[in-house]
């Protein structure tokens, strides 16, 4: 019931704004980049709205509960990426005049094979990024409403596909700008309410972490996926039906879908490969990847991946093409840093409170749901329900916004770059791509959202970021060099991901370099591009092709100003009043 109350308005407003965008859409350019008439403030709100995904809204706080304060470095990397983008990519990329990253590759290097390779990289990044969004949508809805996991996944898929197919990027711009404001409000107000209403005792405990060893009160835990617990002290758990289940020392297999009530004072069982919340190292502000004991290397690896990956995320890059010129694109990047910094002051509050109030989530692996689980722990009455509903609405807005941009980019890559079709084909592709992602997300309930998203960043950092940086700043880059670099980066990261998922366990510092390959895969991709390019001979026009990207637009065509006066609409009139 709470879930319905929370999610319905978000879905309805998203659809309404999406429908409003249909009126002005005639061409592929309208659909993909809103015909390039979006002002910096509106566009940066849309970029932030698109960027603040489930990984930011829920994932960071969940990682803090599970792994410790070090997880707060993820948002730093997410934001730092926009400074790299501002300095290196935004304006020249926009001036290239290309619609998508593969378009840029072709405009700069005139190589159709590179265009197709870039489109494939987009599919890989989009897949790694979209599946966890849909998965988390299903998971949160099932936690809040008790519905089935697949219901949430299907709802998310349908809403995203319909909005996109009808409205395209113009719809997405308004939807995402609206959703950024929604998310900001729905994240900050509950955080302040939580801080004020938990009382001084909990606040004191929150800043003095102790290991989660015994249940503080009777705690009901629902296992949505099967888990193996390591039990060191025997205990007895109850089922909701009133039965008693003895838990012997050793391994204890919990089947999926079971709900146990751990009595007050019972010892907390262990989970393979994880330290409980508040355990040794939890309070360190560094990321100990896989618990291998190299926190500094782990932190640097994650920061490199997120920082350079942001620069290469295809759906974010595409947003910069909706700016009217290079200068506006640069301003968009700068404003985005400001907006994101405001939002990212708050995930830590949910994280440290979640460690005190809902540490049992670590048993089920569903710490991603800590944010929505918190209000009911603080207040059982109307206020708790209200804030649960608000946070669920914000979380759902987060999935929707990110999925909109990603699905657009994936469909664009398929129908614009791989197949070269018109607007109608693009709309059909949107539905097909959404269906495929829903199918992939259905069995992915157990995979960790944070891990998948960071891999998406790593692939982007090892393919598009060298392509863009060298393409924009180095005139000697050749098409064979770019192809080799993108291919090597894609294969290296894909290999490392496959090794982590299916390979034998690795220990020590190599484990970190396999799980977070950015520290070696990014230099490898850059190096391959440079070396292969130096062996070749760039075509005579290459310097011109690069310099063209740095030439500021001179006479501004009034038709390309931020808001086309010739195409006024109610929404644009209203926004024009506020955005200058």
């Amino acid at each position: 019931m709470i879930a319905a109350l929370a999610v319905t308005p978000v879905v309805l407003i998203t659809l309404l704004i999406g429908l409003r965008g249909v009126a002005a859409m005639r061409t592929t350019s309208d659909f993909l980049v809103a015909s390039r008439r979006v002002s910096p403030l509106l566009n940066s709100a849309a970029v932030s709205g698109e960027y603040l995904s489930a990984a930011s809204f829920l994932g960071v706080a969940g990682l803090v509960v599970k792994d410790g304060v070090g997880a707060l470095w993820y948002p730093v990397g997410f934001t730092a990426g926009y400074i790299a983008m501002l300095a290196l990519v935004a304006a020249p990329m926009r001036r290239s005049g290309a619609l998508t990253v593969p378009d840029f590759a072709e405009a700069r290097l005139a190589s159709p094979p590179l265009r197709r390779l870039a489109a494939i990289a987009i599919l890989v990044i989009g897949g790694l990024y979209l599946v966890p969004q849909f998965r988390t949508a299903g998971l949160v809805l099932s936690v809040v409403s008790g519905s089935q996991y697949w219901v949430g996944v299907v709802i998310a898929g349908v809403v995203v596909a319909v909005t996109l197919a009808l409205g395209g990027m113009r719809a997405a711009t308004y939807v995402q700008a609206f959703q950024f404001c929604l998310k900001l409000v729905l994240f900050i107000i509950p955080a302040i309410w939580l801080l004020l209403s938990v009382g001084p005792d909990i606040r004191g405990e929150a800043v003095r972490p102790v290991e989660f060893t015994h249940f503080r009160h009777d705690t009901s835990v629902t296992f949505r996926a099967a888990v193996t617990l390591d039990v060191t002290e025997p205990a007895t758990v109850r089922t909701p039906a009133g039965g008693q289940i003895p838990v012997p020392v050793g391994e204890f297999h919990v089947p999926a879908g079971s709900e146990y009530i751990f009595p007050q004072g019972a010892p907390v069982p262990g989970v393979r490969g994880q330290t409980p919340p508040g355990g040794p190292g939890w309070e360190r502000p560094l990321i100990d990847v896989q618990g291998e004991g190299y926190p500094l290397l782990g932190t640097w690896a994650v920061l490199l991946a997120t920082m350079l990956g942001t620069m290469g995320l295809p759906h974010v890059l595409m947003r910069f093409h909706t700016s009217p010129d290079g200068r506006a694109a640069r301003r968009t990047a700068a404003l985005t840093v400001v907006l994101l910094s405001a939002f990212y002051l708050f995930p830590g509050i949910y994280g440290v409170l979640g460690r005190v109030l809902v540490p049992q989530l670590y048993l089920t692996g569903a710490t991603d749901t800590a944010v929505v689980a918190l209000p009911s722990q603080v207040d059982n009455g109307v206020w708790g329900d209200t804030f649960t509903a608000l946070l669920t609405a914000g979380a759902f807005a987060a999935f929707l916004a990110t999925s909109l941009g990603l699905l657009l980019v994936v469909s664009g890559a398929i129908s614009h770059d791989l197949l070269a079709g018109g607007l109608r084909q693009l709309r059909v592709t949107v539905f097909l791509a959404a269906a495929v992602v829903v199918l992939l997300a259905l069995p992915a309930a157990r995979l960790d959202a944070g891990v998948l998203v960071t891999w998406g960043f790593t692939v982007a950092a090892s393919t598009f970021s060298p392509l863009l940086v060298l393409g924009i700043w180095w005139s000697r880059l050749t098409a064979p060099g770019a192809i080799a670099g993108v291919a090597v980066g894609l294969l290296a990261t894909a290999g490392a991901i496959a090794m982590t998922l299916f390979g034998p366990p690795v220990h020590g510092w190599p484990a970190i370099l396999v799980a977070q390959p950015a520290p070696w895969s990014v230099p490898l991709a850059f190096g391959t591009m440079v070396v292969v390019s130096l062996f070749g001979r760039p075509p005579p026009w290459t310097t011109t092709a690069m310099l063209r990207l740095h030439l500021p637009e001179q006479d501004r065509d009034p038709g390309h100003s931020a808001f086309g006066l010739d195409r006024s609409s109610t929404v644009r009139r209203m926004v024009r009043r506020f955005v200058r």
Partner: protein
Amino acid sequence: MPHRRVAVTSPQTRLAHARRRSRGRWRVPVLDPADAERAQRIFRIQRRRAMVAVAWLFALVLLLPLVFALWPELDSLRLLGIPVSWLAVVLVPFPAMVFLAVWQLRRAEKPEDRA
């Protein structure tokens, strides 16, 4: 419906939009010599400024974890009851990054205004 919208494009335009796009419309990029010279000048300035900004960014983001790794005492030092290192991981990078973004934006726009 007072604002009913009507498609005013010619049927030819609509046909062209519905058709498959032909690729390979790529043309050799050209710049006139004056523009090329201006672009070269701006490019040099922007490259230097971008490198400085990225260097500051890497220094900020990579050195702060090093500080935490070298001085674990920051975890037990408290300000208003909160460990200093927890505050530092949020309250140092974000304001610094906002400053860096605004600074670099100004620096990048200046040469374009002059040119």
